[in-house]
């Protein structure tokens, strides 16, 4: 198996990344934490995009995960970080399981619009729900890890960083394996020609639903991560611009490489931080221009820089007479 996709090598990289967090300065740590959690949602979008459907409403699951965990944390005092991530994932997944089959039939911008509409329905409902704090949302306490409490802010930040990197890293390893699997191949086939997939006897809708659920799980888990980082939840988690942010990263990354998603998320957070620091009120301008540049010059996203064309063209062998000459038309 290739080194770059060997799961053990990748897991090793995750461990390295966590350890690296020990030596980087505080501002880089929090930047990387934010980037990791956004990358997680974007990764889900990429997984789904490989079936040809782009979701503009991942905020739905992001918020569902966040609110679900926040309510459970406050109601039952569950503060363990790992448990929270898992609960977020489950919340997202359950919702994805229900919604997926309903919308898997749609394609193109209709699919996009539908996901957008559903996320805005949640947003609208949350804003007006006073028991959940309405548009202000509400706060949650500090997360713990396996019983350990983190009072030192530096330690608390590192714990959050570690949990985020591990969660996102595991998702990345899973996605890498998925992309090369038979299920992954059939998902690509759905994108290429869903009619043929049906004619071959497989339900394209089912394939889309499953990928959709995976994206929902990732987004829900990320909602939990963001909740832990901000210690606050509000309806903004479901707003369309939040969803747009995640799509941005996915587009920047392209749909061929998991690593590209992390690179893209990190790059965007860096751009955002620096422009906020030096030129306030310009980070959207910079991002917008950046997006245009990528669409123009790297239409397949950052990942295309190293993933390249799907296959190198090899020397065509001597062809049998019929196929060879018949192919001349």
């Amino acid at each position: 198996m290739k080194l770059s996709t060997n799961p053990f090598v990748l897991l090793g990289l995750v461990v390295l990344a966590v350890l690296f967090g020990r030596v980087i300065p505080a501002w880089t740590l929090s930047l990387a934490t934010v980037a990791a959690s956004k990358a997680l949602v974007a990764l889900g979008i990429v997984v789904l995009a490989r079936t040809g459907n782009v979701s503009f409403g991942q905020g739905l699951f992001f918020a569902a995960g966040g609110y679900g965990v926040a309510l459970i944390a406050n109601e039952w005092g569950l503060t363990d970080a790992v448990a929270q991530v898992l609960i977020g994932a489950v919340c997202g997944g359950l919702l994805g399981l229900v919604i997926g089959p309903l919308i898997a039939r749609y394609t193109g911008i209709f699919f996009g619009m539908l996901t957008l509409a559903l996320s805005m329905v949640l947003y609208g409902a949350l804003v007006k729900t006073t028991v959940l704090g309405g548009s202000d949302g509400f706060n949650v306490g500090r997360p713990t890890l396996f019983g350990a409490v983190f009072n030192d802010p530096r330690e608390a930040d590192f714990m959050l960083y570690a949990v985020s990197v591990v969660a996102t890293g595991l998702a990345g390893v899973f996605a890498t394996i998925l992309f090369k699997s038979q299920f992954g191949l059939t998902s690509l086939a759905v994108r290429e020609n869903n009619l043929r997939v049906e004619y071959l006897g497989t339900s394209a809708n089912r394939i889309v639903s499953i990928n959709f659920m995976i994206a929902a799980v990732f987004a829900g888990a990320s909602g939990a991560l963001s909740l832990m980082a901000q210690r606050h939840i509000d309806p903004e988690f479901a707003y369309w611009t939040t969803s747009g942010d995640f799509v941005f990263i996915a587009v920047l990354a392209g749909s061929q490489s998991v690593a590209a998603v992390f690179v893209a998320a990190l790059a965007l957070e860096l751009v955002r931080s620096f422009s906020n620091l030096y030129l306030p009120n310009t980070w959207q301008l910079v991002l917008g221009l950046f997006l245009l540049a990528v669409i123009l010059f790297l239409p397949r996203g950052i990942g295309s820089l190293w993933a390249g064309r799907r296959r190198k063209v090899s020397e065509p062998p001597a062809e049998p007479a019929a196929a060879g000459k018949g192919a001349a038309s």
Partner: protein
Amino acid sequence: MTPVLSVRGLQKRFGAVVAADNVSIDIPASQKLCLIGANGAGKTTFVNMVTGYLKPDSGAIELDGSPIGRRSPRDVARLGISRSFQIPQLFIELTAAENLTVAVSSAEGGRLSATASADSGDRRDKAVALLDRFGLAGHADRPVAELAGGVRKLVDIAMALARRPKLLLLDEPTSGVSAEEKFATMDRVIHAVSEEAATIVFVEHDMDIVSKYADRVVAFYNGRILADGEPSIVLKDNEVRRYVTGGAR
């Protein structure tokens, strides 16, 4: 013996256009049946209805005695009818082997593994074997987008074989192939398919191909069947010559 496919009284209109007018055909096992007719005569509509893509306005379709007229293309494929397309319907960005692997994975039903690699293993081997039957094993790892039209046609047909169908429908298998190569291509197709001893229905415009490969010919015109029988008889029929093949006195 129940015919493999039994079609009774199929009707289909699109507004003022009659695409199928009381079409009835019984196809016995292992027969090689050819559909002929001018463009718009109803051949492709027939194929679309048999494969579930279109629902007939009325009439019955039975596969091995079981009704399938209301089923989806997916169900029809699972029940044993596969088709190839006039314009090859392929997964353009994937390689030839990957196209066939998807077909084979689908044919084997069951779960699509989320962990087992698509590049290796049982299904990939079967995919390459299928390509080999058409002499295309050398193209296995080339993206389909780079393959020439005639080769794509064969890949398209190979995919339809993955399910070892009871009934194989080939929509103009030699269209887009140069005149000199038509026989060779058709030979290759028939040879590749013969291992299955499947029943084949193919749509053709080249009457030489029809004469050589068909056991039986059905001629369509305006959605209606003009003639149905042995090639030597049907092709000499006056109405068929007038409306389909040309050259009527």
